[in-house]
């Protein structure tokens, strides 16, 4: 659905993106994570067909996106700094979108009007920032795109609206197999919506993961033993991180869950608990070895 290979982009002789490659499957929600200035917005502008890459392949819906109006018919881009035509009301904006997108659904537009409770005859510039973002979603979802590219989508939305927008996106992904690319500088914001994440740092993709695999693969366990003969180093566990508080070990372990519990049983632990692990922790421990100050990138 979205295929990027060996992408390079420089603006004003500054290298913004260096050899970026990734793939987003149809019906997937892909979270693009990165700190400010990592190149997320530039990458998204390229994926939306606004900017042209200096080098590399950028294919959306199996065609080059740049200046390709046929493909762009099915792609909607929501930038982080929203733009509306000056003095326009939502209704007028809807007319504009309708004239541009063949897939525009009037029915969808009317349905969403009820979801958002916004006055469509009011000038958009008079709305608050959060309301403007809702208008942008309203318009974007009414165009029924196959690919939705959203830069920092939850910025300025309150918890209720955030939930509403999230469910709207998920609904379209489930019903129509819409493909979504979401960027964020905050992992917590997207961890419950994305199925894949990629981390962009200083113009390069650091890693790409399937979140379900990741969650199934890394575990946080708390164990305590009667005898002092347990040493995580010598055990058959792939330990990413260890802490010892008194006689209690706190371990982050990679591997199959049943295999880990089987291994632990051998030492006959007094306590054996599996603790919830946030996505953030997983990343921190995953990359800890690579020596990155990961917290700074994501949070």
């Amino acid at each position, binding site marked *: 659905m979205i295929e990027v290979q060996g992408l390079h982009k420089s603006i004003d002789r500054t290298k913004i993106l260096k050899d970026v490659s990734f793939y987003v499957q149809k019906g997937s929600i892909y979270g693009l994570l990165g700190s400010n200035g990592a190149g997320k917005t530039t990458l998204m502008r390229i994926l*939306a*067909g606004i900017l042209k890459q200096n080098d590399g392949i950028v294919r959306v819906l199996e065609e080059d996106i740049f200046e390709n109006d*046929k493909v*762009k018919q*099915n792609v909607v881009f929501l930038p982080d*700094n929203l733009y509306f*035509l000056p003095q326009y009301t939502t209704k007028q904006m809807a007319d504009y979108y309708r004239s541009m997108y063949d*897939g525009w659904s009037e029915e969808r537009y009317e349905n969403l009007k009820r979801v958002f409770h916004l006055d469509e005859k009011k000038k958009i510039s008079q709305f608050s920032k959060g309301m403007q973002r809702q208008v942008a979603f309203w318009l974007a979802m009414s165009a029924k795109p*196959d690919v939705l590219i959203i830069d920092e989508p939850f910025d300025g939305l309150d918890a209720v609206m955030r939930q509403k927008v999230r469910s709207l996106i998920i609904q379209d992904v489930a019903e129509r197999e819409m493909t979504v690319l979401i960027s964020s500088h905050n992992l917590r914001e997207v961890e419950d919506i994305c199925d894949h994440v990629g981390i962009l740092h200083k113009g390069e993709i650091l890693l790409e993961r399937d979140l379900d695999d990741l969650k199934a693969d890394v575990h946080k366990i708390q164990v305590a033993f009667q005898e002092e003969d347990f040493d995580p180093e010598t055990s058959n566990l792939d330990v990413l991180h260890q802490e010892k508080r008194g006689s209690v070990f706190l371990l982050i372990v990679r591997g199959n869950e049943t295999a880990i519990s089987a291994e632990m049983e051998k030492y006959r632990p007094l306590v054996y608990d599996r603790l919830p692990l946030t996505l953030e922790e997983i990343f921190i421990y995953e990359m800890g070895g690579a020596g990155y100050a990961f917290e700074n990138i994501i949070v």
Partner: protein
Amino acid sequence: MKWGVQGMRSKTSSFNKEIIKQDFRNVGWISIVYFLGLFFIVPMQLFMEMSKEEPSIPDDRGLFGSIFAYELQLFFLFIMPLLMAVFLFRYLHVKGASDFAHSFPMKRGKLYQHHIVSGVILLILPILLNYLILIITAGAVDVQDYYTVTNLGYWLWLFSTMTLLIFMVGVFVGTLTGLSAVQGILTYILLFLPAGLYVLIAFHLSSYIKGYSGDVVLERSIQYFSPLVDLVEFQRYAPDPAEVPVEKLPLIIYGLVAAAFYVLSLFLYKKRSLESAGRALAVTALNPVFKVGVTFCFALFGGMYFTVSQNEYSWMIMGYFIGGTFGYAAASMLLEKTWRVFNWRHLKGWFGYGAVTCALIAIIPFLWQNYESYVPKSSEVEKVFVSNGYWQYQRMVDEEMEIPFITSVESIQSTIDLHEQLIEVSNPLEDGRDSFFFVYRMEDGSEIYRQYRVDEQEVAEAKKAVYETEEYKKIEYPVLGLDPDKVNRLHIGSYSGQGGKEFYDPELIAGFVEVLKEDIEGISYEDMVTPRGLYSNVHFTVNGNPDNPFHVQLHPSFERTMGWLKEKGFYEEAMTLPADIHRADVYRWPENRDFSNNHVRLIVERLKEEGIEPLEFTSDEKIGSLMKGQQNQEDGAYIVAFYFDERNSDHYEVLSFGKEDAPDFIKEHFE
């Protein structure tokens, strides 16, 4: 695949009404202002004029005339199309708007064409509406005094074409830059640039190259280098016979140029990298071109500025340095959008661009190297015109007079001899007192112009040979070609300002002109250049027009004319007599030569300021012999100043004597 199906069910026509609608909402006000501006200047003015008790007298320019405040019309014509271009394509220069506009499924070319359609409609509509009002008015009431339908049609054509031209140039610059302010300024610069460069280069050529006539180049063709100048020129020279500001052919060319800019902008827009919103130049490759261009223009301007005031090559080079540095700094500031450009990198750049600019300035004169030494072969010359200035020639061309060319082989040869001498002695930067202007009309139909300024003594011999030809006299004295039958009135005014004689009788006029022509045909070089005595001015009114080039100075050395005046009894009124002179002051010609200008009149001013006591004469007899002195001398022994009125010490005339020809009574006094 799903998206493939969707792509095929395309219901959108190639025309998107919403974009046009948005443009109208966005820039419709410009159209309204343009309409109102033109409406109040043209139709409203017409209604006001027609309802007046005493309407003003219209000139023959119709809608381009003074009743309809052509300059004000120009104001709107210059401003509105550019505003349209700036506001219509403003979205290209704002990142958010640019991303928004280009994220939609529409190719750039199509988007561009939509905006152009909006712009054209919104600009043409105000002109067309005013046209309709005027044509309906013309059908309803008699407006023949103010404009004709043809004139109105031309107005429509001219305004539409020029509006579109300025609009398209504005759009072109808009696609080239990323800042709306830069777009505005750069558009006017681009519209004016060819003319400005032309002036700068012509100026520099005439200060580097002997014989190059900047006057000709500038006067003849400057308007073809800038549509703005072309439109404005019409108004500046009031007695211009042109009825319309821009002629048909240039108007067609401007239309084609506008079309070319349309295509060029389309191409640039498609190629434009959208991340350049907010940058001075969207096409990065143009940055160095822009820098060197600005440096070059400012260097030339600086050179011109200092040369005009100092007239020295060293100052000229100083001007290049200062101007070029200024231009380089300005260009760097604009490109980087900060004034803090004073760092090592730019210093290096400044050296580089300075070197390129110096090379360009140095190369230009070389392209004209052959020009400088070129003297036409007499066998190739059909005829030649010589005078002491370009304007004299241009005036005859403008008034469609017969130009008194030199045609005989010998005279052409003496002209070429003079020309060759001038090349040897002249220096383009030194302002000699006397100017020589040549027009060669060659056998192959081409024309060659040359202009020199030198002090005439340096070429006296060659000049004499030319001046004494009968043909040159026709140039110097247009009166030789005057038909006395066409003269309605003849006025002779003496220098003293007292008296004067005018006559209307055709017989007297014919008699006077006849003897005058005889005298001029026989005049010697010395009498042409340094005539003796106090002259009177003769003015003719020809075919009712008092403004003509036939006026002539009547010198006492014109023996036949003097005889004729005496015989008819007009002499006393026509010429200055000793009795008309109140007093004559005689000074010794000062020995020290540190006067910046040798003009005798200025020397007298200096002597008076220094309080030097002259020798005064009041007797008619002495004054009579002092009146035999010469004019225009640059050297001599004695200077005589004649005062005509004791109350007015500013009204005087100066003659001078050499050692040999001075009257004895002065010599005796001063020795």
